[in-house]
């Protein structure tokens, strides 16, 4: 017996934590962090054991069984899923510990840990799913947990709006994913929905399923990923989702759930490989999103929104990697991003916790007040910017190399994005931590150890986890691709160029925000319209409002009136005509309900008599 056979237990630890917290309710608040963290810890330990064992295993049983077909649920351990399990449970565990400090004063801390545990359960379930339907089920569940946690401070109107938006925008993607499930169900032999079956059927374009349908299915799956992973044009929910508590932004909206789209494509990668059109779509949407979000991040002032746009951009990089066929690079970046972005968000939480402000215009000079946080944030920023030897450098390099092999335009876009990434991170870091302490920074003090501890662990990983896949070490690709040849194409030239570009970005940032030899505002002032447009995220929100929300409202109002005056009007007309007739023939309309009852009974008798007397007319 191997640990992989017991993998189904992994999600059950946080589920138990959730049930416990829900059952106990608010009186349980002192123990809530312990229960929540213990749940994630149980998952973490077992996940590590499963991954260390390295055994692939799957098992399933019927969920709904019918005559010729059945829908099943099951779990599957592969190298990819076991790596994901470790990442998810690991970050969850750290966030649970961190939140003990961050959420300490909140009166609904039990509810908070309950939701977090439910999320961890759902996310682990998603990772373990052995088929598309089950993945869809957990896909929706992580979505609803995200919704609940974004709207955790439900009394704030912004949180309410953001939660609603997050749910509905991602649901647009989910509709696509559901359609993909429907299509797969009817086009796969034996209605199989399991990933292993999909692998067999679509491997090497076997021709079992028509090419056009394959492309359609792949694109619909991608649509689901676009919603969940914040890709253009459905990325608009993610920045608003920052209304949730910051540990949630780290866990759900940086490290785990938003990466589910990338994971989904990895799980169904064979579908995409079978369809060049779908692959190209993924690559170009990813590259476009990476660049678009990076430019917006440059013009944001809210610490968390900058990080949110950065997440969108980095997820774009992962999509780009997938689109150019390098699953390894995508998973690699998913992993390093989980570490350094979680770190950045937790560090941001630490400074928000201390300064009670998150607008970089009101912050500044926090470095002298919060040395540890500043240092840790710095590590995260360097990793994200792709400065060697930090982890982000290696994973981004893997993506850029793969992109260069595919198409120079994709490479160029990726490189430009890397420059902007370093630039916006330099801007964020220097404006928050450098210079003289601002009014908000004045009373700030370092966060408690319970918050710093998890950040230090993440910082170590953000710094060094890149070494799992380097030009001289292909452990990760070997792990993911198993026996298949690891396609390693890191050319030294790409490494040098990408490092140089990132350093250039940092240098410009340093000149602009520390030395102040460049005045970024002068550039913005020269083009106020464009500057404003970027700041508003190219008004994509407004576009949605104008093209979808408003017309839909009008349609609703129109339908409401139509229903009231036309549909019901016709009926009412008929009814009053009928009752008018009734009034002429009999005094039935006396308003007494008894009369109607009697009429019904009388009618019945009449019918029976008529039936009995059928001989008269037969």
């Amino acid at each position, binding site marked *: 017996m191997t640990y992989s056979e017991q993998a189904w237990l992994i999600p059950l630890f946080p589920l138990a934590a959730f049930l416990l917290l829900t059952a106990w309710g608010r009186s349980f608040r002192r123990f809530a962090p312990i229960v929540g963290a213990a749940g994630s810890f149980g998952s973490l330990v077992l996940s590590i054991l499963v991954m260390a064992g390295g055994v692939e295993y799957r098992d399933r049983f019927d*969920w*709904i*069984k*019918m*005559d*010729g*077909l059945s829908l099943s649920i099951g779990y599957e351990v592969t190298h990819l899923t076991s790596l994901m399990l470790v990442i998810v449970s690991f970050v969850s565990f750290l966030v649970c510990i961190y939140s003990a400090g961050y959420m300490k004063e909140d009166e609904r801390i039990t509810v908070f840990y309950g939701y977090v545990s439910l999320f961890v359960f759902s996310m682990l379930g998603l990772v373990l799913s052995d088929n598309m*339907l089950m993945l869809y*089920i*957990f896909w*929706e*569940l992580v979505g*609803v947990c995200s919704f609940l946690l974004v*709207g955790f401070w*439900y*009394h704030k*109107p912004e*949180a*309410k709006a953001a*939660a*609603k938006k997050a*749910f*509905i925008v991602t*649901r*647009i993607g*989910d*509709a696509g994913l*559901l*359609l993909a499930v*429907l*299509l797969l*169900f009817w086009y796969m032999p034996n209605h199989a929905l399991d990933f292993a079956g999909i692998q067999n059927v679509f491997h090497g374009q076997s021709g079992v399923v028509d090419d056009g349908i394959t492309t359609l299915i792949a694109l619909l799956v991608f649509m689901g990923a676009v919603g969940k992973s914040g890709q253009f044009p459905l990325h608009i929910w993610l920045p608003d989702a920052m209304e949730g508590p910051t540990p949630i932004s780290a866990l759900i909206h940086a490290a785990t759930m938003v990466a589910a789209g990338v994971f989904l494509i990895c799980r169904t990668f064979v579908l995409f490989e079978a369809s060049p059109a779908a692959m190209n779509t993924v690559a170009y949407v990813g590259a476009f999103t990476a660049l678009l979000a990076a430019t917006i991040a440059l013009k944001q002032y809210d610490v968390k929104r900058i990080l949110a746009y950065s997440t969108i951009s980095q997820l774009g990089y992962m999509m780009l990697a997938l689109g150019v066929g390098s699953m390894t690079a995508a998973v690699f970046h998913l992993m390093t991003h989980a570490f350094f972005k979680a770190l950045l968000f937790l560090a941001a939480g630490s400074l928000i916790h201390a300064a009670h402000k998150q607008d970089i215009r009101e912050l500044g000079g926090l470095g002298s007040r919060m040395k540890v946080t500043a240092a840790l944030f710095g590590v995260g920023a360097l990793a994200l910017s792709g400065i060697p030897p930090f982890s982000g450098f290696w994973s981004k390099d893997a993506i850029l190399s793969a992109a260069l092999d595919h198409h120079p335009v994709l490479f160029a876009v990726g490189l430009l994005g890397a420059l902007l990434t370093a630039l916006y991170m330099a801007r964020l870091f220097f404006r928050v931590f450098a210079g003289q302490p601002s009014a908000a920074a004045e009373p700030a003090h370092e966060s408690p150890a319970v918050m710093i501890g998890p950040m230090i662990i993440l910082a170590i990983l953000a710094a060094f986890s890149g070494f799992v896949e380097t030009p001289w070490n292909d452990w990760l690709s070997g792990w993911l691709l198993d026996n298949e040849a690891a396609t390693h194409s890191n050319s030294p030239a790409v490494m040098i160029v990408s490092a140089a570009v990132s350093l250039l970005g940092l240098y410009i940032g340093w000149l602009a925000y520390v030395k102040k030899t460049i005045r970024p505002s002068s550039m913005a002032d020269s083009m106020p319209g464009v500057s404003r447009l970027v700041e508003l995220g190219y008004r994509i929100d407004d576009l949605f409002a104008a093209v979808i929300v408003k017309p*839909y*409202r009008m*349609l*609703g*109002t129109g*339908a*409401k009136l139509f*229903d009231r005056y036309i*549909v*019901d009007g016709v*009926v009412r007309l008929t*009814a009053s005509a009928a*009752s008018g007739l009734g009034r002429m023939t009999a005094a039935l309309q006396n*308003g007494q*309900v008894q009369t*109607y*009852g009697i009429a*019904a009974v009388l*009618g*019945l008798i009449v*019918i*029976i008599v*008529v*039936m*009995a007397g*059928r*001989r008269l007319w*037969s």
Partner: protein
Amino acid sequence: MTIDWPILSLIVFSPLLGAALLLALPKQRARMLRWMAIFATLVPLALSLVLYVDYDPSRPDDAYEERVEWIRIPLEKSAIGIGGTFELQFDYALSLDGLSLPLVLLTTVTASMAAIASTSIRKRWKAYYIWLLILECGMLGVFLARDLLLFFIYFEMTMIPMIFLIGIWGQMERERAATRFLLYNGLGSALMLIAFVILIMTAGFSIEQASGVLHYMYSGSYETIVSNLADPQAYANLSAASSVNPLYMSDGMRTSLFVILLLAFGIKLPVFPLHTWMLDVHREAPAPVVMLHSGILLKMGAYGMIRFGLFAFPEEAQRFQAVLAVFGLISLLYGAVIAFRHKELRLVLAYSSLSHMGIVLLGLASLNEIGMQGAVFQLVSHGLISALMFLLLGCIYERAGTTSIDELGGLAKAAPFLSGALLLGGLASLGLPGLSGFVGELLALLGLFDSNQTVASIAVLGIILTAVYVLRAVMATTFGPLQPKLEGIRDARFVEALPTAVLLAFVLLLGIYPSFVTDMIKYSFDGLLNHLNTRVGG
């Protein structure tokens, strides 16, 4: 284990017995009346649970048949011209199959919960509970009756209590609502009656031979009618063998009967554009009555459509497949779009019912096993969810004096339990996996996708539109800052929390373990599917 006592009749008539007992109690004894009424709904609940445990879906349909000769009207013998008897027959016939059982369970559970939740009724308790129990008797009878006349009587038996329950205990415009309820449902009943009479006088014909004497009869027996309709040749031979020559059932006649039945039950379902009557009921009737109305009475429409539409007229159903699908789609989307614009929560839920019943039609239109099971599952699921939602709306109305979202908001702060339940109910309604709403939706869409890809693909839009209106309604009620005038309202009392918890438990159970329902309905569609398959094969 087999049950050798008439459990079906006991289930149907135990609420009526309770009503009779209530009649004997003095009307001032509110507490006693209430307990008595609740007890009277618990009896059929317990019995139906026994039935659930005992039920084996693979057993033949007549395993629970209870049949008593009821009405025998001799007809003119000269019509047959030979020896033997000639009668019009109606039996008291109850039977149980995989289609009835989940609906019976839904009815007994919901009725008990509605009875418990009826503490909000403030006047004339005695009469109220009596009507409620009669209503339950009628609903249970509808799902079990296997004779057309008996079915019709039970069907009407649900109407009369409803009129009183709306008209006396409703809100401001209760009488208008009651009248409209009567007009529409009366029209539906009239159509049903026409169809039934024609069916009895044609396909109801059969000849039996007993001790050398031929018995010619027209009967309301469901089995006779369905088997005659299924095998027109044997039926024609039968008529030829006798000199009775019953009304010839032409194809045109079959089609018109099918359409009439669709209309009759479509009003009840309801389906666009026959839905406007139920808006008034949802808005005016007291909350526990709407629990039953939206939770069960609407299901009678779908049940009738399956039992008398699809089962009796499989070929016609196949020919009208696209029509059913399109009307289902319209109901689904139209309801969702309008629900998004109403501010009165009761109306939001009314249109939500229209929308969710659209999914039932979509599932039925698939005419395959998975889709039709999805339709039945959706019936049960929506019954539970809408009962839950109206229970909660009743609680909110009692506290806030309104159910308009403009005057509500921030309820989560003052009443976390009610708000949490409302949110869960909303999530179930928008088809969140893990809750019952998802399964019905999924199965219906899966089924329909095989029969009609276009409609199924468009119907997937429904999952977005549903999320839009459900979240708008629920979040406007529970999220945001607390309305000042709602300050200090109390959370659910025990009598409110208990039915909420029970309904939620079922919603969860069905969502996590759908086989609880699908195992019951497993073989219910075999007859229909076999018929369609052999027809296609032959």
